[in-house]
C-alpha cells in the first residue's frame, strides 16, 4: 500500500496521533485519538510505519496508555549525552554509563522468565547491588591473560569502556552510614542505585518502595516483554551490544 492509497483524512488523523504522542510522550484512553489509533489498523500502520519510524521511535502500549519510546539506535528524540547526564544528574560520563549499566542489570534481574511474565515482582536494591557488583567484578578481573591483553590493546581506542564502569563502581563503598539523604549522593553504591531508580521512576518505569524495593510498572513490562522481543528490535539490540563499541563517539 502506498501513501497515495490513503484518504486525506486518514493521513491527517494519523498525523494528529503522531503529534500528540510526540508532544506529550504518551497517549491515554482519555484522548479521542487513543481510540482512533487503537481501533483503526490503517491509521495505526501510518503512525507506526511512517511517522514514528521516521523518527526511529515506537509507541508501546501498557494497559490503557501508549508510551512513546525511542527505538534502539539513533533517534532524534533520544537524549544527547549531556541531556542524559543532566536528567540523571550525573556529574560525568562515567557516572552516566554506570547508571545505564545498573538499568541493564535491573531488567536482567526482573525479567528472567520467558515472554510475558516477569519472574520477580520486584527487586531489592540490595540484590541489585550484589548483581551489578558480581557482573562488574568479572570485567575487572578478566578470566585469562589472553583476554586481559585484548582489553589492553583495544581499550586504548575507545574513550569509555566497560572497565571504566567496573573500576568506578568497585571503588565505591557499598553503603555510607553517615548520609542523611542517600538520594543526594553518588558516593556509594546504594545511593547510586536509588538515584538511577528515581530517574526511571521519573520516566514512569519503576516504583521505589521504602527506598529499598524496586517494582516495575506496566510501562517497563511493556517495553521489555513486548517491545524488546520483536524480531527486528531484538536484532538491533544485539547488534548494538555487540558492535557499537567500534564506532563509539563517546
Amino acid at each position, binding site marked *: 500500500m502506498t501513501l497515495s492509497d490513503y484518504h486525506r483524512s486518514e493521513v491527517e488523523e494519523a498525523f494528529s496521533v503522531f503529534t500528540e504522542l510526540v*508532544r506529550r510522550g504518551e497517549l491515554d484512553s482519555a484522548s479521542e485519538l487513543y481510540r482512533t489509533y487503537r481501533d483503526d489498523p490503517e491509521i495505526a500502520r501510518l503512525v507506526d510505519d511512517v511517522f514514528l519510524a521516521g523518527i526511529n521511535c515506537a509507541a508501546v502500549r501498557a494497559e490503557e496508555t501508549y508510551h512513546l519510546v525511542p527505538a534502539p539506535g539513533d533517534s532524534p528524540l533520544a537524549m544527547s549525552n549531556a541531556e542524559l547526564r543532566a*536528567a540523571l544528574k550525573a556529574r560525568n560520563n562515567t557516572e552516566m554509563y554506570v547508571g545505564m549499566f545498573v538499568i541493564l542489570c535491573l531488567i536482567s534481574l526482573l525479567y528472567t522468565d520467558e515472554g510475558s511474565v516477569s519472574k520477580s515482582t520486584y527487586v531489592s536494591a540490595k540484590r541489585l547491588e550484589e548483581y551489578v557488583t558480581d557482573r562488574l567484578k568479572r570485567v575487572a578481573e578478566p578470566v585469562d591473560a589472553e583476554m586481559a591483553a585484548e582489553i589492553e590493546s583495544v581499550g586504548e581506542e575507545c574513550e569509555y569502556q566497560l*572497565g571504566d564502569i567496573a573500576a568506578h563502581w568497585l571503588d565505591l563503598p557499598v553503603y555510607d552510614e553517615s548520609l542523611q539523604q542517600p538520594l543526594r*549522593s553518588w558516593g556509594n553504591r546504594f545511593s547510586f542505585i536509588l538515584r538511577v531508580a528515581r530517574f526511571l521512576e521519573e520516566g514512569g518505569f519503576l516504583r521505589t518502595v521504602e527506598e529499598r524495593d524496586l517494582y516495575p510498572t506496566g510501562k517497563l513490562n511493556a517495553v521489555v*516483554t513486548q517491545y524488546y522481543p520483536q524480531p527486528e528490535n531484538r536484532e538491533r539490540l544485539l547488534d548494538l*551490544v555487540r558492535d557499537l563499541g567500534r564506532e*563509539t563517539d563517546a
Partner: protein
Amino acid sequence: MYLFRPLLDLERSQTFAGYDLVSLGLATLLFILENMLQSPGKPCGHAEIRRFLRRTMRDMHGEDPGEETAGEMEEYLLERLRNGGRRFSYSYADPGEGGAEDVTFELIAVDDYEHEGRWVSFKLTEHGLELIFRTREMSRELRVGIYQLYLRQQLERGTFDGALEALEALQMEVRSQLERLDNFEYRIYHSLRSVRPEEFRRQYERTREVLEAEQRQFQHLKALIESERRSRENITAPTEVDLRALYQLKMIEQELNRVSNEHSRLLARRMGVDNLLLRELRAEVQKGFRVRFRPEDELLDPLLSRPDAGAERVRGAVESLLHPRLPTYFNPLKSMHRQVLWGAAEEESEEIEEVIDGELEEEAGRLNSERRCIRYLSAVARLALRGSTFTLRELLRAQPEDERLTMSRCRDFFQLMMHLHQEGGLDIEGIMRGRDAWLDSGDLPVPYLVSRALEDFQTLPPSLKVAAGDEILSFSNGNYISNLVFAAAEGEDDLE
C-alpha cells in the same frame, strides 16, 4: 424431590452395565431442552436423540457403541423417562402438613407428530423444565434462556411466586455473566496468554445471536406481563387474591425491566470484548513466534563478553527505557511558517545579530549559550579564588573587551546572574560533592554548568554568597540588574 425419582431410579437399573444411566438420562433431557431453546423449535425426534446418545456414549467411553446399541439405549431411556407413556405417580409424606400426598407428572411430552411419516418430536413438560431448573445442571451459555423459558411458564400458569424466584435466578445469572465478561476483558488486556483456549471457546459459543434471541425473549415476557396486568386491572370487583396478584405482577414487571436492562448491557459489552479480542489476537499474531526474551542472555551477557568495547553500548541496550526528549519546540506544523533568523524577533540591535550570526539552529544556539555560561561561571570562580569580596561591576571589568561585550549583550549572562541572585549564592562545594539539590532553574542546569566550568581548576573556589548591591547596572541589551556583591560563604550552613 419427587421430580428426581425417575432419574435416580435409572441408577438401580441392571441393563447397560458400564454406562452411567443417570448422566445419560439427564443428558437426554438437556438435549431436548437445547432443541427447544433454538427458535423456532428445532425438531427433536427419536433419530436426533439416537445420534446424540451415540455421540455422548462415544465421548464417555472412548469407543463408538455402534448404531444398534445407541438405538437400544435411546429406546430404553425414553421408555424409562416417559414411564412407558404413563404419568409418573409417587406418593410422599409431607412433613409440613402431615399425611401423604400423591403427585403425578410427566417429564417429556410430544411436541409435534406426523402420523404418515411415523415421526414425533419431543419437548420437556413444565415438570421436566423444573427438574432441569432445580439441578442447575445446564451449561452457563444456556442458563439465561432456560430461566426465561421457566419464567414464561410460571407466568402463563399464574404462579407469580415462582416467577419472582425465577427472575431472581435470572438476574443473578445475568450479573454473573457481566462479571465474567469484565474479568475476561481485564485478562485480555493484561495478557492474552493468560486466557485459556476453553475460555475463548466458551465466550465464543455465547454468540451474539444467542444474546439477541434472549433480548427478544425479554420483549415477549414484558408483553406477556403487561397483558396479564391489564386484564387484572380491568376486573371491576377485585378479590384479595386478584389484588395480591396485581401487586406481584408490578414487582415482576419492575424486576424484569431491571434484568432486561442489565442484559442489554451484556450485549453491548460483549461486542466491545469481541473487538478487543480480535485486536489483541491480531497483535499477538503480529508479534510472531516469539519464544522468550531474557535480557540477561540477550543483552547483558553479549555486552560483557566484549569488555574491551566502548561503554556507549550499555546505553544502546537501555535506550528505550530513557524517556524521550520531548522538544517543547517540536511542532512539525511550524515547518509551514516563514523561516525567521534566531533571535531576530527579539527586537534587539544589529549587534546582537552579529553575535549570533549564523546560528540558525536553536540547538546550536543552546549549545553556544551553554558554553558561554560555563565561561561566565569560570570567570566568577577565578575571581572567587582570589579570596576577597567582589562586585558584578568588578567582574565585568576583569574580563577582556570581547567577553565584556558578550556578557553585556547576551541574555544568558543576565539570566545566570539573576539566578544566582535568587538562589542567594552558589554552593560550589555542595555541587562538586553531588550534595546539592540539583534544582534546575528553567533552562539553566546550574549544577551541571558549574561542574563543567570547574573541570580545569586545581583548587576549588569557596562557595559564594550573592547579595544585592547598592547601585543598578544597565546592560546594552536593555536589562537592568543590581551591582551584585559576591562574597565567600563562611560556612556551608549559610547556604542551606
